[in-house]
Each structure stands twice: as structure tokens, then as C-alpha cells.
């Protein structure tokens, strides 16, 4: 394999400094389940690897005023074991926990999933539906960026040179809220989403008063489907509204035919998963 320098800073400032000084050759290492695989395949040849797993802010989960702040490098296994987060955001947690296998879960992070910028990344539609906001730090300081604005295309992000994602914040939401994520894969494990769908709802009685819907693997980036949310908000999630939301999802799809699915199939499944995810989210919302 190729030679690369390895550094493991203990603060975000230090990490940003290393990245900024690497002349574009630096790569952040979180769990490495994408980065190391890509390096072995010769797709990435970094000159500097900045391991962020020793930075407290990036490896902790904190609750503050109803918001949940998840360090970008927290592993799926730690998220799984966090009862409070699991109860508050079951859809986000199940999406992160779908990544890979038990072994992969021990390493893989939501920050890595987001910054790898795969259109099929499992946690991203759930984070987008949740309205998650990324805290980004770079040479020019910190900024808050809605998660859906981070991916710019397959394998590309909107992060400026030297910028890293520090954490992801899930905003407080009212009682009666629930979220869900579903993906379709041809097998039951160890596969990449043909379509992924995240739904986040707030119910007041039987009425849907707030909704966010996101789709993965049907376009170059994860999509926030506002038309689908609109079809749900103000409805009782009756069949006609569900069908309207499903139709909005199908209309939003701009997929490709490839080894993982056809255009026809992906488009159809986007509607199917929307309905199924809404049912789960609504059931969870009813319990809160």
C-alpha cells in the first residue's frame, strides 16, 4: 500500500489546522469503513490521515435543551447503546444501525456516512428528515449547515478545503412526533440501498401538523422532498394523502439504471417505502 502520514489530534482546532495545512492531501479518518476500503482499492491516495476519534467533542453524544448533539465520529454501536437517543429519534438510530454489519457498526460513524457523500448513504435521509444541522469548522471558524446541503454529488461534498464536520444536531421537536427510516435491498444484510426513505412527522390527534420526507439512492444526492411533506401536512394520513405523497416521491426521483436497480423499479419503490415509513413514523408519534 501507499505511504501516508497518520495524525491523531485531540482537539478540533488542531484537526482543522492539520487539514488546512495538508495542501488538499489530508483526509479525515473516522471509522475508516469507507476511507480504508477506498484506499485499498486505490481510489483515494491521501498524503495525511487525520484520525478524529480522540477528539472528545466528535466522539460524544450530548442532550441540551431538547436538542441532541451527536459527535460526527461516534460509532453506530455507541449510538445503538444510547437509550435516550434511541427513544427520542428511533428513525435516525435505526438508519445509522442499518449500516453494514455488527463489525462495521463498531467503527462506522454518521459523520463518515454523510461526508462519504454516497447517494445511497443510509443515515442521511433519516438525518435530513429529522432536520439535522451539521456543525462545520474550518480555517475561518464554525458554521451551521443543514445536513441536506453537505453532499454535492456522488463522492463530493460542499465542505471548503480544511473544513470538517464536528457534530450533527437533531433539533428538539414537539410531543406527538415520530420518525422512521426504511431502505430496500435485495438481500437482508450487507447490501447498498436501492432506495431509502426517511420520514419525520408530528401529529396532533389524528392530524399531521409537521412532516419532512427524504429519499436516498434516487438522485445524485439525498433529496428533501418538500412536495411529499406538503401532501401529508394537514391530512389525517388517509389513503388519498398517502398516495399524493407517494406520487410526489415518485416525481422527485431522478435515478439511474445500474447494477443495483432500474429507473422503473427505484421510482416505484420510492412510493412504496414512503407509505410504509409514514405508517411506522405515525405509530411512533402516537406513542409520544
Amino acid at each position, binding site marked *: 500500500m501507499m505511504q501516508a502520514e497518520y495524525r491523531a489530534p485531540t482537539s478540533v482546532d488542531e484537526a482543522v489546522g492539520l487539514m488546512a495545512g495538508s495542501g488538499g492531501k489530508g483526509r479525515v479518518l473516522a471509522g475508516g469503513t469507507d476511507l480504508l476500503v477506498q484506499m485499498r482499492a486505490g481510489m483515494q491516495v491521501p498524503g495525511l490521515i487525520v484520525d478524529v476519534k480522540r477528539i472528545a467533542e466528535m466522539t460524544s453524544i450530548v442532550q441540551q435543551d431538547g436538542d441532541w448533539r451527536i459527535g460526527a465520529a461516534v460509532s453506530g454501536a455507541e449510538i445503538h447503546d444510547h437509550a435516550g437517543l434511541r427513544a427520542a429519534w428511533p428513525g435516525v438510530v435505526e438508519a445509522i444501525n442499518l449500516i453494514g454489519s455488527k463489525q462495521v457498526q463498531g467503527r462506522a460513524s454518521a459523520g463518515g456516512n454523510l461526508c462519504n457523500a454516497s447517494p445511497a448513504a443510509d443515515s442521511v435521509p433519516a438525518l435530513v428528515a429529522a432536520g439535522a444541522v451539521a456543525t462545520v469548522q474550518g480555517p475561518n471558524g464554525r458554521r451551521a449547515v443543514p445536513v441536506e446541503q453537505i453532499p454535492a454529488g456522488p463522492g463530493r461534498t460542499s465542505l471548503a478545503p480544511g473544513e470538517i464536520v464536528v457534530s450533527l444536531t437533531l433539533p428538539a421537536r414537539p410531543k406527538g412526533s415520530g420518525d422512521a427510516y426504511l431502505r430496500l435491498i*435485495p*438481500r*437482508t*444484510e450487507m*447490501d447498498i440501498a436501492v432506495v431509502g426513505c426517511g420520514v419525520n412527522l408530528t401529529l396532533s390527534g389524528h392530524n399531521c401538523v409537521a412532516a419532512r420526507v427524504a429519499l436516498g439512492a434516487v438522485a445524485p444526492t439525498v433529496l428533501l422532498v418538500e412536495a411529499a411533506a406538503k401532501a401529508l401536512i394537514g391530512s389525517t394520513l388517509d389513503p388519498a394523502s398517502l398516495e399524493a405523497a407517494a406520487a410526489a416521491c415518485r416525481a422527485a426521483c431522478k435515478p439511474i439504471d*445500474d*447494477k443495483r436497480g432500474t429507473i422503473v*423499479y427505484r421510482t416505484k419503490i420510492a412510493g412504496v417505502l414512503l407509505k410504509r415509513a409514514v405508517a411506522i413514523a405515525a405509530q411512533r408519534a402516537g406513542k409520544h
Partner: protein
Amino acid sequence: MSAQRYKWVGTRQNRPDGADKVTGRARFAADFNLPGELVGKVLRSPHAHANIRSIDTTAAARLPGVKAIVTGADFPEQPDQLLPAGEMQVNLRDVTRNIMAKEKALYEGHAVAAVAATTAAVAAEALSLIKVDYEILPHVIDVREAMKDNAPVLHAHMRTEGVKPAPDKPSNIAKRLEFAKGDADAGFAQAEVVIEREFTTEPVHQGYIEPHAALASASEDGQVQLWTTTQGHFQVRGFCCRLLDLETAQLRVTPSEIGGGFGGKTVVYLEPLAIRLSQRAGRPVKMVMSREEVMRASGPTSGGHVKVKLGARKDGSIVAADVTVALQAGAFAGSPVGPSCMCSLACYDIDNIRVVGFDVVSNRPKVAAYRAPGAPISAWAVESVVDMLAQELGIDPIDLRLKNAAKQGTKTHYGASFGVIGLVETLEAAKNSPHYRAPVKPGHARGVAAGFWFNVGADSSAAAQVGEDGTVTIISGNPDIGGSRASLALMAAEELGIDYNKVRPIVADTASIGFNFVTGGSRVTFATGLAVINATRDAISQLKARAAKIWEVDVEGVVWEEGEARPSSTNVGKFEPLSLAKLAASASRTGGPINGHAQLNAQGAGPGFGVHIVDLKVDMDTGIVTIDRYTAVQDVGTAIHPSYVEGQLQGGAVQGIGWALNEEYIYDKQGRLQNPGFLDYRMPVASDLPMIETVLVEVPNPTHPYGVRGVGEVPIIPPMAAIGSAIARATGVRMLDLPMSPPRLSAAIDAATPAMAAE
């Protein structure tokens, strides 16, 4: 069951290779290393079809650390001559071109050059410095496209064999063959129901976990040693000697433990290259394929196109059958179309049969054997139509098969007549199985299918060496893929009458035991088992002779019972029995070491039949199939080691499930493989499957002392049609094309139910 008849045969002992495998001590091919070894790597064609105008290796040769470079020119031309390779036939002219292209690259991934260098990085850089001047040609991937008159021709010299008059134009159809019994047309005239459909299958890879790997060391005096992962190191020796002009005594091949083969490791890829590079470099050369190279350059089994027409009477008796099978051979002639044709209807006693086959080349890797080569492809089609007949006639699918089942004396369409076979017993066992007797769960559906494989015998050698303390080493020469060492040791222990753990089986290299044909054709426990039994009996007869000598009696006066020599009767005299340990201890005083030997060409392999039952559920919105329950029933002759027999049935069923539901090669427009890895070449994962239940039916093979039949291949034959039939019963849609993947099944369901498509 056999367990009561025998002390060791039929019991479930620990496998002799088990401890090493679970502790990681076992050495697979990539685990072998030698001092000073070089790394060998292969340059592969990026084009599906191209003339090679020239190859310039000068820049690569100048790179420091590069020790040898070879191209097609480094391998001598070979005669147009067929050789058996496992269950397949290969042509030497083609084999040398498959390991290293000469005038043409015939598929993406085709080897065009190889280098040996001091490190992997240098070797990789050297590959990038080799300049190949390609003239890209139009290519053809699909079998039916390749058969068309205007298809790009792969081999200008190829004329379709088996057609009269002999064609004068080149074609991608290498061969046409035909089998007939009775009069098919007259048979159809008697039929009251006729069903005809066309089916396709995709090529599927054996998916062995261990990629191909080889380590070669050539000495200055011409001797060569080779360590490799293979199903047949004698075959490897034979191929390498012919391809490299070596004498067999000069080349010693040691097989590693093998991480799966399923037929795919009966041919050579890296071995001749590693030897040639080692000869050129004067140092050992190790080569290991990546998974991507395995997928792009090693042989899967054929994809096929199968047309089936069956005619039956209303009572269910099948009176006529017409089957046409066209199989992809890959880049060189030699698909398993023969066995595919022969197995297609072997389960049934039908008076009027016509079967036609075509062997077709296209721009894909040359196919290799895969469990019961060819049989699953034709069975998928025939068994699906048998199920349609059952539905049409309102007859239980097992009853319909019982009504038409082949029996002892049934004459097949390929000429042979069956001896003692167990299809009827297997069908009855399936019918009486807990699975078939259980009601189908709501929302689920059930499918059934049958399968047949010949099984083979062929050449085997074995030795039984009695150690000084009376323990016994059993030496044979078949790489152990499925637990055969355990089965061989069980039969030896049974013969010797000693504890199984006092018998240690090993797999010897080509210089340490006589010739053994490949581990293939489900032959090892049968044929090599016979050699082991005979070698053990040879040792026993020597042991009896030693006892006779000690007792000073005729050898006829000695019997071998429970691990000791005993006088055959009181007339012989009163002697304390002599145990194996005692006789071994005194061997040097009674005539020297005691070693038994045997070599044979085993005849009378017992054919195998299997019947599979599956219950599954279809998600009508997504086309996803969930297997809920699966049972494999099979006539296994005698289960020498039942756990490993069950393992064969389970493994075959699982590979068949992958074949049925997801596995396929996906090519782009340039003929480049898009899914050369296990992420997108979707074999089943554990969570996709229920525990595969098994029912072992034992109809002993009368030509083997313990009644052994091969068991390893039959279980991959029925799954596709069993699953397709269950899907048809669940959805009302009969799938004709494999794989029945979610997008395809979903599209088929939507096409059949327009209301859902509009949703």
C-alpha cells in the same frame, strides 16, 4: 439407518482438518511462502473483444525490481486436442490462449501479460508500463445474439460440429448435439395437454471464498515445485506439463487446504504463469488473484436458453418431451451442454423424447464446471413445466412426479439404463416429510422440484500405512473440499476395526501417491473411498499373513475381527489374538513395514436424485422473496458421515437459492463486467436463509462395499424450479428468466396486474 449396521460408518466424528481450520492454522494457497519469492501480477484486457497488434514490455522490463515478464509468446502453441478436465472437456489450443491471450483478447479480464517483481507495488507499476496495441472489435455477450448469422465471430476457424452438411462459414456455435428416444412427434399427437415455454438463466459464479493463488519454484536443473489451491493437483500437473513442455516427474504439485471450489478449481489460470515467471526469474513466484480478478477472469457456469415442450395425458402420464438447450461456453468452446441435455429429462420415464443442444461461444470468461455442470439450467426449465402440468391437471406435484418417475431399468434418452436408483423412495420421503405434511402458512406458497446427476467414478490411488504403534495413516490424493478426509477415515476405521481417531487421513502431493482424478463429479467418497477400502484390505491381508507367520499356521487360518488377528476356528489352534498394535510392533521381525496400496478405475458410480420443497412469501409491492422453510430430500446411498452429507445438501440448496433469486453478471455496453465483487454479485447471506432441513434417503449403491453414492452435486439442481414454482403459486406469475430478482419479479407482477402498476 446405517449407524446400526456399522461401528464407524454413519457416525458423526470430528473432521481431521477441523481443529486446524477453526484455529486458523490451516494453510490455504496464499499462506505458502518461500525465501526470496517474487510477486507475480497479471495485466488483463480492458476490452471484451480485440485483436492484439503488439505488446511492448521494454519500459516495464527496465523498471528496477522487475525480474521477469511473460506474454502469450512465452507459451508454446498447442494442438487442437480435447482433454478431460473434471466433468468438462477442454481443448489444449484454447487452454493456452485462456491462460494468456495470443492473437486476440476474447473477454474483459483476459490475461495478456504477467510480471514478477520484488514487491506488489513494483509489479503493479510494471503492468502500467506495458503497452498493448489493441484493435477493438465488435463483441457479443448474450447467447442468442451470439447464435445469429450477423454476430461478431470470435474464432475464424470455428465451424459448427454435428451439422450436416458440414458448414463452410465460421460460427459462434461450436457444436450441435441431439438425443432421441421413441418418436417425439408421434408422442405429442397422443397428448391431451401440451405446455411449451422458453426459459433463460444467467451465468453464475461458484463464489468460492478463497481466490485462486499459486506459488511456483523452478530450479536451475529443471525441477519445479508448485503449491496451489485446486480440486485436482494431478490435473494441474498434467495441464502445466503440457502447456510448458515439462515431464510429469519434474513437476511436483502440492495442494493447499482449499477454500471452496465447486468445480471452478478444476482448471488452471495462475499456475502455468507462476511457473514460467519463476523459470525466467530464477526465483520463486507467488501469485494471488483479487476477488475482482476471480470474477472477471475465472469461469462461472454457463448462462442458457432452454425451450421445453411437454405433452401429457389427463391422468398425468407424460407421453412426449422436446427440449432445446443453448449454453454459453464463454470465450472458448466447451459448455456443459452435453450433461445439460442428458440430465434434462432423466428423472422421468417418457417414451418419446427429443433433446437438442448447442454449445455457443461469446465474449465472456470461459465457463468452468460448477456443481452438476449444466444440469441445473435444463432442470430449471423442465421442472418448471412439470409444475405447470401439475397445476393444469390439478395433480399434486409430487404425485405427478411419482407417476412418471424413472426406476430401475428405465432407459434414458441418452442411452443408459438405470440400475438401482432411489427417485421413487426420495419422492415418497419428500411427501412424508414433516415439511410437506405441514399446511402452507397463510400468505405463503409452496414449490417442489426434482433433480438428477450421474455422479462419476474414475481413477484413484490410495495407501494405508501402518505405523510402528499400530495407528494408521490413510494417504490419498484428492483435495478435501467437503469433509472427504473424515469419510475416508471412517471407512478405513470400519475395515480395520480400530478407533476412528487412530486413523489419520492426509492428502498427498503428486509425488507421494499415485494418480488421482480431480475432486469432482461427487466421486471422492465413492471412488477414492473404494481405493482406501482396498488399500486398507491390502494392509489387513498383510497383517493376517504376519499373524500366520507368528503362529506358524496357514494364512487361511487367520481372520481379522475388531482390530485384531484371530484364529478362524479352534481347529487352527488356540492363540491369543494379535492386535494391530502388537503386529505393528513386531513388523520388522516378521517381514518389514506393513503398507497397503490400491489403485483403480472405479466403475458403477450410483446416480443421485433429489427433491426439494420450499415455502416462501412474496412482497407484492417490492418483488422481494423471503424463503420461510426449505427442505432438501435426497437419495444419498449410504451417508458415511451424515453431517457432511447434510452439509452438501444444505450448501447446494443455498447456492441454488442465490442462483434463483439474485446472482447474475451485469455487463455494460462495452462488454465490461459491472459487478465483479460480492457486494453487487449477490450471493445469499446467512440472514437471507432459514435453516435448510434435510432428509437423507439411503438406497445403497450395490457396486460399493458401503453403498456410497455421490451426494455433492444433485442438491444444486432443484432449487431454481422449486422457488419459481412457489413464486408462481404465490403470485400467479410464472417466471421464465433467472434471476427472479426484486426488480424483475416486481415488473412481472406489475405487468400481470395492471391495477398495481398504476398505483
